[in-house]
């Protein structure tokens, strides 16, 4: 005849109670990660738009554009401050890195780009300045955000790509907001700085560092081209390096 049933099932036991508690904690952790991911995406989008805005700076529009950028940046700062508020302690900061680092890297790229433009291609922002700016806007103790070195380094690597784009565009503009040679020197400095880093740093950065090298070679090529054409006509020493900006002639183009 049939073997006896083993044990009938019944109400929950201690393991169940423990797991129910863990379930709630895990859900909360995952929910927080998800909130951070969404914020990180928003920060990325806003940062990229700020960068595109900054590329529109021309001699004529410089003041207005920078002004607009700083206004936009305030809103972006607020996004970052909100993100920081989600991090309740340093544990959260390290534990949830993957969720919010991408956005912070883009933020670093955007702010450092603005910094670069305002200093006409000479100044590299620092993590301290980045932090100080935020602390000015939110003095609450809960600002747990540090700009960790890896995030800073990642953002600066991406910055060099924008600096290269700026250099190329500047080389075709009469009165560029930043001199291409200055930007070239800027990239050289950064490349030289990163070259001193050992493998512990470069392990995760090899792709970005490769891009940096490519960007540097592009800016060197730009300076080379400017210099070699200047050398062909040495008596025209006072010749502006590039032909004046041509954008305005669009006026003269009648569209149907």
């Amino acid at each position: 005849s049939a073997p006896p049933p083993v044990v009938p099932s019944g109400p929950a036991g201690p393991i169940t109670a423990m797991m129910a508690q863990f379930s709630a904690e895990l859900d909360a952790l995952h929910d927080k990660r998800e909130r951070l991911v969404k914020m990180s995406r928003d920060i990325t989008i806003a940062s990229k738009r700020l960068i595109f805005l900054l590329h529109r700076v021309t001699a004529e529009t410089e003041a207005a554009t920078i002004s607009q950028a700083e206004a936009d940046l305030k809103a972006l700062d607020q996004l970052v401050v909100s993100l920081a508020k989600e991090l309740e302690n340093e544990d959260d900061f390290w534990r949830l890195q993957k969720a919010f680092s991408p956005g912070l890297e883009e933020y670093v790229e955007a702010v450092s780009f603005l910094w670069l433009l305002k200093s006409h291609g000479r100044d590299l922002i620092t993590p301290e300045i980045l932090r100080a700016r935020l602390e000015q806007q939110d003095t609450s103790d809960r600002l747990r955000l540090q700009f960790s070195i890896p995030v800073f380094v990642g953002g600066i690597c991406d910055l060099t790509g924008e600096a290269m784009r700026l250099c190329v565009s500047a080389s075709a503009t009469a009165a560029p907001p930043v001199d291409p040679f200055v930007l070239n020197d800027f990239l050289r400095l950064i490349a030289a700085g990163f070259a001193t880093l050992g493998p512990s740093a470069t392990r995760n950065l090899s792709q970005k560092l490769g891009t940096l090298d490519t960007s540097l070679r592009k800016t060197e090529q730009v300076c080379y081209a400017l210099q070699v054409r200047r050398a062909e006509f040495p008596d025209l020493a006072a010749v502006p390096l590039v032909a004046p900006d041509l954008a305005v002639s669009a006026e003269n183009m009648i569209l149907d």
Partner: protein
Amino acid sequence: PIFAQIRQYYDEEGERREQIRTKVSEIDEALRTAQATTAAVHTAPARAGEVALKLLEDLKKTAPLWAALQSSIPAGQHFRYNDQWRNALSQAVTLVCFATFLQRGVLATLEECAGLLAARIDIEDYLSGVCGLPSELARLSVNSVTAGNYTLPREIATFVSAVHSGMRLLNLKNDNLRKKFDAIKYDVKRTEEVLYDLAVRKLV
């Protein structure tokens, strides 16, 4: 039951995509002809107007093809299938804009392109096509000088710079369009270098 439905869906889609492929292939062929037409202006820039006219004719020949293609798509499914013709459409837009510039010195609008090609053109297709223009014009600028035409480079430089500045107003994502846009700054540079070369030698 459900599997018959699924089966039918994929069979129909496969069929339709096959037909689209054939139609796009014809369009590609016609665009190759059009592209070949542009070669003449690089060797003889003075014939720009003539080339532009021929080019526009070649492009108008694709209008029935585009119309046939897109009318064969059920209503509302334009974006279901447009991946198959996006490249061809972008190339066509570039050619329309090229011809329009040669003829009238202006940038053809999306509506003008859509009208001439009898095709539905989305923003992204139009912009993609516009992105293809500066490199062709930079090349024309260079070849104009070789052919002894020292006035066309200025128009080109102004125009390319305007296109670049205009497109700079866009907020792009990290996609194909962004890559194409990134390439334009080198064309701006090239056209500026040509102007410089002429100016510094007092050729204009």
